[in-house]
């Protein structure tokens, strides 16, 4: 791995000194919940995370939110501060699509490291499934592609990922089974997650024979849409002690971002995507002082099955082109080589960006994942992807302080 990335040593020193941690997590019910608004979910998730940390609402002095697909706000963070009844010293809305939740951890850490805040509530919630209007859905689909040079050709969001998937299959001689295997593993994991939406067993054959959305992707290659909320509290080890937080802490070891493109039209080749994933991962791994083989458990953005393969390979967990075989051999399952998305991910639990990925990583490192618990994980990676495998973010978390 390249050691020449700027800022690695400085960030390492800062994280060693500050010991930034995730000290509390919360998840509401997930699914089709038509009687709760977007801000209801945000509030409920915030309350759960504050209660999980065992602190008071007034102990929170920073707020990071994201955006809503239902409620149109220009200033999402302060709109929520007003609704929830907070007076934050630091506030920010992060909006990089599926890369958002992972970057919320980094945003909070940077605010803490620069003295803007000590206890940051990071929260997302939305009634996407029940609340989105058809014009809102159209706007969302359009947001993902170029309004002038892509959308008039009828590109959909699954279609954008299908374009990447088709090229992946072509370049590596991979098969649809390799994609399907990702969905099958996510479904297996969701069976043990209390609030997962889809728990019925799923076979490779089920995925292949389900309704075609955009070839080569079928219904089960695509993530679900859901209502729900999730939150986490970011602070420092010292502040957590001062506040009397009793949870085991998940320590931030490193973070990074990687940009490939916004519109597929400007994508040169698959390597451009791999490079963006790799840059994001490298920065996080190098700051953490680890290699991919040191990672015990991974949370990879799984809006579509193809993204998991691109991320497994781009992050260096498996050689390029071998992600499909890795998935098909069941090596992402709990108890195997590299457990991935032990909560069922966006494909089977619920879709709230990578919020649940961050929450589950924390629960696993704490040893609080119940029947899904991986044996003594020490290092977790969470990777988010926004746009159509466009914008990437990675964090490395550990169950001990970074050394």
């Amino acid at each position, binding site marked *: 791995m390249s050691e020449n990335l700027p800022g690695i040593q400085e960030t390492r020193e800062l994280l060693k000194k500050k010991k930034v941690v995730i000290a509390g997590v919360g998840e509401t019910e997930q699914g089709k919940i038509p009687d709760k608004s977007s801000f209801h979910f945000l509030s409920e998730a915030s309350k759960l995370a504050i209660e999980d940390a065992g602190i008071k609402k007034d102990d929170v002095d920073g707020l990071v939110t994201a955006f809503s697909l239902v409620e149109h706000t220009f200033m999402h963070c302060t709109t929520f501060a007003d609704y929830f009844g907070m007076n934050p010293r630091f506030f920010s809305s992060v909006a990089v699509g599926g890369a958002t939740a992972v970057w919320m951890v980094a945003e909070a850490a940077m605010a803490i490291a620069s003295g803007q805040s000590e206890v940051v509530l990071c929260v997302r919630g939305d009634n996407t499934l029940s609340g989105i209007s058809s014009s809102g859905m159209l706007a969302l689909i*359009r947001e993902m592609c170029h309004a002038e040079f892509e959308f*008039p050709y*009828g*590109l*959909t969001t699954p279609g954008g990922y299908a374009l990447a998937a*088709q090229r992946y299959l072509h370049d590596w001689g991979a098969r649809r089974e390799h994609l399907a295997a990702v969905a099958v593993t996510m479904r297996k994991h969701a069976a043990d997650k209390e609030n997962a939406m889809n728990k019925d067993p799923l076979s490779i054959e089920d995925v292949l024979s389900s309704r075609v959305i955009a070839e*080569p992707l079928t219904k089960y290659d695509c993530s679900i849409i859901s209502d729900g909320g999730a939150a986490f509290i970011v602070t420092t080890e010292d502040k957590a002690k001062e506040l009397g937080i009793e949870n085991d802490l998940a320590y931030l070891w490193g973070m990074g971002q990687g940009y490939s493109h916004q*519109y597929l039209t*400007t994508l040169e080749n698959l390597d451009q995507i791999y490079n963006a994933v790799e840059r994001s991962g490298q920065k996080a791994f190098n700051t953490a002082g680890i290699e991919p083989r040191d990672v015990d458990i991974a949370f990879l953005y799984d809006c579509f099955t193809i993204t998991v393969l691109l991320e497994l390979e781009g992050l260096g967990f498996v050689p390029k082109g071998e992600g499909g075989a890795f998935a098909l051999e069941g090596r992402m399952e709990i108890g195997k080589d590299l457990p991935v998305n032990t909560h069922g991910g966006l494909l089977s639990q619920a879709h709230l960006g990578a919020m649940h990925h961050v929450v589950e990583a924390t629960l696993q490192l704490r040893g609080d994942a119940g029947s899904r618990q991986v044996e003594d994980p020490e290092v977790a990676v969470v990777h988010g992807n926004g746009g159509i495998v466009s914008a990437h973010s990675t964090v490395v978390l550990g169950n001990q302080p970074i050394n």
Partner: protein
Amino acid sequence: MSEEKKEYNKPLPEFRPETKPFWEAAKEHRLVIPRSRETGEFFFYPRALSPGGDMSDDIEWVESEGRGKVWTFSIHHMGPSKAYKGEPPYVVALIEMEEGVKMMSNVVDVDPKDVSIGMDVQVCFDDVTDEVTLPKFKPAG
């Protein structure tokens, strides 16, 4: 034909000042691709300034032969809006043009099952409304 055109309910491009020459040429059934006069490099989609290091606003529109290859494609069985309901599956593709840039488009005049990566394609023009012509691609030769 003209009545049919008026019923076109699928998404249409909203022109920006810097993209207008592209759409005006398309209406005349010509494909033009922007190029920086400073570096001689083609780029796509059109921007006001070249996206290269030159950041030049000295842009020329070069007429293209309209030849390219399918770089990737997806047969869409579900469209982005109600206007696609009941329509047969259609091909959305990224076309690698001879000029080196990629364009997103539809591959038409072919059974979607016969489309493949690397296939040679040639531009054709679909006058979807009186104002808008979409450049599309069909198998070459």
